[in-house]
């Protein structure tokens, strides 16, 4: 049945980060948006760890506020959920995976594959940003869950590990929902669905394959996905004119175009 958001808004203090979003995620989804567009806040809101949110969020037909002690439903790589105890990563992973009814041996084999065995005896706060990201990804993937929410899963990783991670996600037998501002990986996930996010608003969905063929042009066009960056409007159209997403490395570049 998937994850369904209806008219969802979220804010930090008085700043609105997510603005009346309607969205349906079933796995094989990429939330694509520049830094600061609200992607991570969206994940926090879905998980239920965001404080100020409005609207309705259901996971498999159950309102998230009613979900309690339900292993096997959802896992995430968001670093803030791994703050329960300040113990070495090996112990932390073992605890979370046991509580989430996951597979610790799968975690260990992935750790070996990513060659990060050496850091298991350190605490999460002692690791580099890249190591943290890998290990949080691996803990999330070691859970036997229906939906894995991965926040910028390739961020701060070296190219070799990025490729390894991409291969794992492409072949994953389950519902992966990830967000990213990077466009280099879109080729690898051509059969996934993309949802564009700018300034807390969602646009789409569109098949990644179609997104790759589309061009970004200034102005609003009928029968196409249009979005606003700053005070300018842009549309995704077919044809040869305009900017192709694969020409830019990150969606952050769109702001430069927008300016």
């Amino acid at each position, binding site marked *: 049945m998937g994850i369904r958001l209806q008219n969802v808004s979220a804010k*930090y*203090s008085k700043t609105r980060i997510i603005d009346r979003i309607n969205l349906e995620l079933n796995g094989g989804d990429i939330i694509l948006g520049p830094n600061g567009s609200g992607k991570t806040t969206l994940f*926090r809101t879905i*998980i*239920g*760890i*965001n*404080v*100020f949110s409005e609207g309705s969020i259901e996971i498999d037909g159950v309102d*998230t506020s009613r*979900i*309690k*002690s*339900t*292993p096997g*439903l*959802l*896992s*995430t790589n968001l670093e*803030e*959920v*791994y*703050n*329960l*105890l*300040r*113990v070495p990563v090996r*112990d*932390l992973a*073992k*605890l*979370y995976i*046991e*509580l*989430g*009814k996951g597979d610790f041996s799968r975690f260990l084999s992935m750790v070996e594959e990513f060659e990060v065995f050496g850091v298991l005896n350190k605490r999460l706060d002692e690791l580099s940003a890249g190591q943290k990201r890998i290990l949080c990804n691996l803990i999330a993937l070691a859970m036997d*869950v229906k939906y894995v929410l991965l926040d910028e899963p390739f961020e701060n990783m070296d190219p070799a590990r990025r490729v390894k991670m991409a291969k794992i996600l492409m072949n994953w037998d389950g519902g992966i929902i990830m967000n990213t501002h990077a466009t280099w990986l879109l080729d690898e996930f051509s059969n996934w669905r993309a949802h564009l996010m700018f300034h807390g608003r969602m646009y789409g969905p569109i098949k990644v394959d179609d997104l790759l063929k589309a061009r970004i042009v200034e102005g609003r066009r009928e029968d196409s996905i249009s979005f606003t960056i700053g005070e300018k409007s842009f549309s995704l159209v077919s044809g040869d004119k305009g900017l192709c997403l694969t020409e830019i490395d990150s969606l952050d570049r769109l702001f430069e175009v927008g300016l």
Partner: protein
Amino acid sequence: MNTLLLKMFLKQMFRNPYAWGWGFFFVSFWLIMGTYVFSLEMPTGLPAETYFSYTGSWFSMSLVYSFSALAVGIVESTYHSSFSLRYLTRYSTLDSKRYYLVSIISTMVFFSVFSILLGVETSSIYSFRFGVQLVPKKPFELTLASILSALFIYVLSSSVAYLILVLKKPRLITFASFLPLVISYPLLFLQLYVDIGYIVVLSPFNAVNSLLYHYYSGISVPRGPIIKSGQASAVIEPSYFWASLISWIFLLSMLNLILIGRQKGISIEELRQV
């Protein structure tokens, strides 16, 4: 109860260098000062009761300061784990009751180990210094008082952490985590040197201090300053201190339950301000 969670809690506590530094070594330093520096003018050959009173007052104050130092860690870990707990209680087998039970048990075990270590240290060095065997007079009651003191510090610390979450004042967390230490320090010194009247019973820190002093030394707590124990005609029955301590634990537990229900956490951005 989840044994792995308990094991991890204990691992976190026993491997915390700050807890050992401030809760044990710093307090041990003062215990040694009490033995070899502050007692220089104390003559030998005094009645054993005088040495027991002196040793008991050092032990009781040291243990309260040690527990108050350990409370800093409890406040901060309760506060910082709020996000993880909200995630785990939804998407894992962990429920909040089990988490708090494990958290309380591990705190009691950890604090008990510190009580035993400081108790053994105190009786060893003070016995050696004064040439009198100064082991606790009522070890069973002393253990019970230490365990309840640990429980009091736990409920106080978690109340402080939840209050900060309810008030959404993350910048206060560092100050708030030191509150037990800041409050206990002057209160205990006042009890040592001056007559603080009913505060000695009403204040939970003084109630803990009095119980520990009484069961270590076997001497009743005077109505005036502890330093004049033995000379005072009026004493306070330990039952008053027990009643005070148990009432505080009950009240703070109730406050905790209310605050847990009302707190909705704070945003991660606010958490990062700390």
